[in-house]
């Protein structure tokens, strides 16, 4: 059982692409090997900035021989059919066997593929993998036509077993596969041969290359935290940065430095963002002061002066960067103190939000009006919500956000406090963008909730109005995220919002622009209503996805969506959760069956008779104890359900419905609905109607499957 070792050695691979590339290489090669009839025991992929490596252990030395029989046309079939069969099998006529099959004689093709040596298969599979590699961006270089992420310099491809190792013969665009690789660019230049994966890994380590990214990550994190600990400091965890930095070095050397005194007063987010984005530094925090006071940089080499030159250079670059940041910070504060946050926002009149939806200032005016309208529903002061709406996007005009867009909202909060605005307004600056993704926190402060809802609803109604809805994988304005944001804001805060009416309000300010865009004075009949209903349906779709992830079945949601008031998402979910829980109980399941039976009989009778049996059943026509008992049970259930429904206590209502299970079952066992006596029959159908009406108060149970 040989082992296979592959290394694709190139110029520096972008750090962000390495993890995907490892996985792609593993999958492309192992899938190819398996498809060609080779099995293997295990495979592992590795990467450094300059190499992608795959180690496959316990590979078959030859592929299994394959014998395949295929039945063809009859021997007296038209020539065309026989030719087609020859083409598809790749055989000649004299190679076909003739066998009698029932009445006729039929051609059979027996295709035998002998086992092939692993090396042949590996060469084919690897060449295909290199040529078809799914890099997010690839390039050509020199005079060649091969594409790779950066120039590919060498291919190492070895099959090794107890007897020794051999190079797999392979040439891709002039690059001949061999058994050599290179160590660290600066610390161990030059090529050397290897004989197996273990040998390769050990020699690389001696040549100052740590092959495994996970090992580099661990080494970086350990060294960083230990150095910080020794000084009583702590490194701020940043998994994304750690992975990126591990992809930038082959021989990580962790160096720590201090941030100059002049910069320590900058907001920690500014220090962190500037250091991470520009320099790929980790932030180091002093737990006693809570401030960011130091940085960790990861060099790619050891030096004779133990990194002194490197750390000095890095500190100098950082000082220049932070001077810029301080300049932005001080400038922004000056602006805010002189003109207030609304003054800073003034320039937004000249910034286009979308050419059909006006400027950012237009957008802010719409959000302000909507936030004011939503505020009472979420328990916020309308004036405060309106004030917040006017300033939450002001920092888009700040120098700091111009430099670091990811600090939008965060800077607004600092500037709002500097301007002496209320705390709720300052908090809303960052919080109104939230939740940014399915795992992001949902704001809870009423002012932030009002503005966040207004912002997202304005965006959605705007893009719906100009017919820029998400399609398939295309959602350039992140409208799905906005809709999910509204859903999570509403549900997370138990907000009782009549969403449809808010969509309608939010749509109004867009109307003149839409009419202008379409060059008409009046929009078509029903356009407003249809557009809003379409958007509401989009919300419902997103809600279904959201609830399915919470384990609530689609048919349960459909049953609740069919009820009136389905634009009140909190009520809708309350209903769905109660129904889902109810259906999981025996009573629920059985009641559902009873309901369905009643409903089926009733529906058929109504269709046949052309009437709706909703006249009310009269207990005086009841025959036998089961029928009488059902009347009593329905009376009792109705008495219990009405107040529960009034209090939106769906669980209690359904528990009362569950009490109907036994009487309904007994009724169906004892009583025949379609009797000869038309009066009795009509009365019983009216009785079934009462069952349908009672059960239908909670949800449209006809939509429940099973």
């Amino acid at each position, binding site marked *: 059982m040989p082992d296979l070792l592959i290394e694709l050695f190139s*110029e520096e691979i972008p*750090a962000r692409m390495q993890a995907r590339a490892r996985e792609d290489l593993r999958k492309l090669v192992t899938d190819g090997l398996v498809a060609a009839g080779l099995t293997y025991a295990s495979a592992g992929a590795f990467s450094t*900035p300059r190499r992608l490596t795959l180690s496959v252990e316990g590979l078959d030395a030859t592929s299994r021989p394959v014998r395949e029989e295929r039945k063809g046309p009859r021997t007296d079939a038209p020539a065309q059919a026989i030719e087609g069969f020859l083409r598809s099998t790749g055989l000649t006529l004299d190679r076909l066997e003739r066998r009698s099959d029932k009445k006729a004689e039929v051609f059979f093709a027996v295709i035998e593929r002998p086992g092939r040596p692993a090396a042949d298969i590996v060469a084919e599979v690897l060449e295909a993998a290199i040529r078809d590699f799914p890099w997010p961006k690839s*390039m050509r270089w020199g005079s060649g036509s091969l594409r790779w992420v950066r120039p590919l310099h060498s291919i190492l491809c070895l099959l090794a077993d107890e007897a020794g190792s051999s190079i797999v013969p392979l040439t891709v665009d002039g690059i001949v596969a061999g058994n050599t690789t290179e160590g660290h660019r600066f610390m161990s230049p030059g090529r050397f041969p290897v004989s197996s994966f273990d040998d390769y890994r050990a020699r690389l380590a001696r040549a100052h290359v740590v092959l495994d990214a996970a090992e580099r990550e661990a080494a970086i994190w350990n060294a960083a935290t230990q150095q910080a600990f020794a000084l009583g400091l702590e490194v701020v965890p940043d998994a994304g940065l750690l992975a990126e930095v591990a992809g*930038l070095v082959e021989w990580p050397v962790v160096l720590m430095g201090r941030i100059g005194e002049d910069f320590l007063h900058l907001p920690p987010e500014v220090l962190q963002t500037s250091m991470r984005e520009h320099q790929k530094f980790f932030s180091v925090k002093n737990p006693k002061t809570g401030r960011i006071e130091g940085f960790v940089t990861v060099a*790619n080499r050891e030096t004779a*002066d133990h990194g002194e030159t490197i750390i*000095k*250079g890095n500190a100098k670059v950082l000082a220049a960067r932070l001077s810029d940041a301080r300049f932005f910070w001080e400038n922004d504060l000056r602006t805010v103190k002189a003109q207030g946050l609304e003054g800073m926002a003034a320039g937004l009149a000249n910034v286009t939000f979308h*050419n059909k939806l006006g400027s950012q200032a237009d957008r802010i005016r719409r959000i302000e009006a909507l936030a004011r309208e939503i505020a009472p529903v979420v328990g916020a002061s309308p004036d405060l919500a309106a004030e917040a709406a006017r300033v939450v996007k002001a920092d888009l005009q700040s120098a700091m956000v111009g430099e670091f867009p990811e600090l939008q909202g965060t800077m607004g909060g600092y500037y709002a406090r500097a301007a002496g605005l209320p705390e709720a307004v300052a908090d809303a600056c960052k919080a109104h963008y939230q939740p940014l993704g399915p795992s992001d926190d949902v704001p809870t402060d009423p002012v932030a909730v009002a503005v966040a809802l207004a912002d997202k609803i304005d965006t959605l109604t705007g893009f719906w109005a100009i017919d820029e809805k998400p399609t398939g994988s295309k959602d350039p304005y992140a409208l799905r995220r906005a809709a999910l944001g509204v859903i999570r804001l509403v549900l997370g805060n138990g907000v009782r919002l009549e969403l449809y009416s808010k969509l309608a309000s939010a749509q109004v300010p867009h109307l003149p622009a839409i009419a202008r865009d379409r060059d008409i004075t009046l929009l078509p009949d029903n356009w407003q209503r249809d557009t809003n209903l379409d958007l509401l349906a989009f919300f419902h779709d997103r809600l279904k996805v959201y609830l399915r992830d919470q384990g609530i079945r689609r048919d349960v949601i459909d049953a609740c969506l069919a009820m009136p008031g389905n634009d009140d998402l909190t009520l809708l979910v309350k209903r769905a959760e109660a129904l889902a829980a109810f259906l999981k109980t025996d009573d629920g399941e059985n009641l559902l069956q009873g309901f369905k039976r009643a409903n089926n009989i009733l529906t058929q009778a109504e269709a046949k008779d052309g009437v709706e049996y909703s006249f009310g059943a009269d207990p005086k026509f009841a025959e036998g104890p089961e029928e009488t008992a059902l009347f009593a049970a329905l009376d009792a259930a109705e008495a219990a359900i009405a107040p529960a429904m009034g209090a939106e206590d769906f669980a209690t209502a359904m528990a009362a419905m569950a009490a109907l299970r036994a009487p309904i079952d007994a009724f169906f066992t004892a009583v025949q609905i379609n009797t000869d006596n038309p009066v009795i029959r009509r009365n019983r159908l009216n009785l079934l109607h009462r069952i349908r009406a009672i059960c239908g108060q909670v949800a449209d149970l006809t939509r429940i499957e099973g």
Partner: protein
Amino acid sequence: MTARSDLPRSFQEIILRLMTYWGSKGCAVLQPYDMEVGAGTFHPATTLRALGSKPWAAAYVQPSRRPTDGRYGENPNRLQHYYQYQVLIKPSPPDLQDLYLGSLRAIGIDTDLHDIRFVEDDWESPTLGAWGLGWEVWCDGMEVSQFTYFQQVGGHDCRPVSGELTYGLERLAMYVLGIDHVMDMPFNDPDAPIPLKYGDIFRQTEEEYSRHNFDGATTEMLLRHFEDAEAECDRLLAQPSVDPKTGKYIVMAHPAYDQCIKASHLFNLLDARGVISVTERQAYIGRVRALAKKCADAFVTTEAGRSAEDAA
């Protein structure tokens, strides 16, 4: 370790060492292009010569102008007029990274003491319709060069691919010389009878041009000249390929490209004057790109820009 005496002592010495180094590696050491450009890439020795299949190797300093970067000579490292050092080799040689590292050593950067890294940075010039993949090169966390394998220029695929190196000379020199403010950097030998600092030469011009770029330039004239350059570029390229006077095939690709360069710089000035709105910006960039594409289209029909397979 490099001996101190081996370190360059002035801005011009760094330029001279780069010239000597790349000359010794076989590059034609060219002179700057005699027009106002935003970056060394605009020099026809890069933009046009990256097209077609003829081998090419050139290195040169290019004075570059970015009107919006004017800071009246006060910012320690931002200038509206600065120098780029540019190398273009076609086809890109397999050892281009090593050649590049050699150039750092030549100007006194000891690669045994510093941390040199190649960090992903893809290059794109919307005005030139050009893009490539490569890195920014970091020395101890500072970007010292841009390293790009050109994939397209003027909308044409580059075959073969050129390797392009761009050094921001002031920043690199400040790092090597240990200077904190660009105006304090020795331009010639500090022990020369008349030692001159960068500021002695450029502080006043930075002030004058900053005022000019932000407030002085007449926008109506700039707009008119932009239109003129655009029209002239089109007109030159619309002439018949065969010159009626000489009877020779003479496409005026370079003169037309001069007009494209002019339009690009005029746009930069208009931008600095703050008279171009966000939406208009894209439209102007698109107009300059259209010119660059037409010039590239013309150049690839000429002797210097032809592809081998077209000639065959």
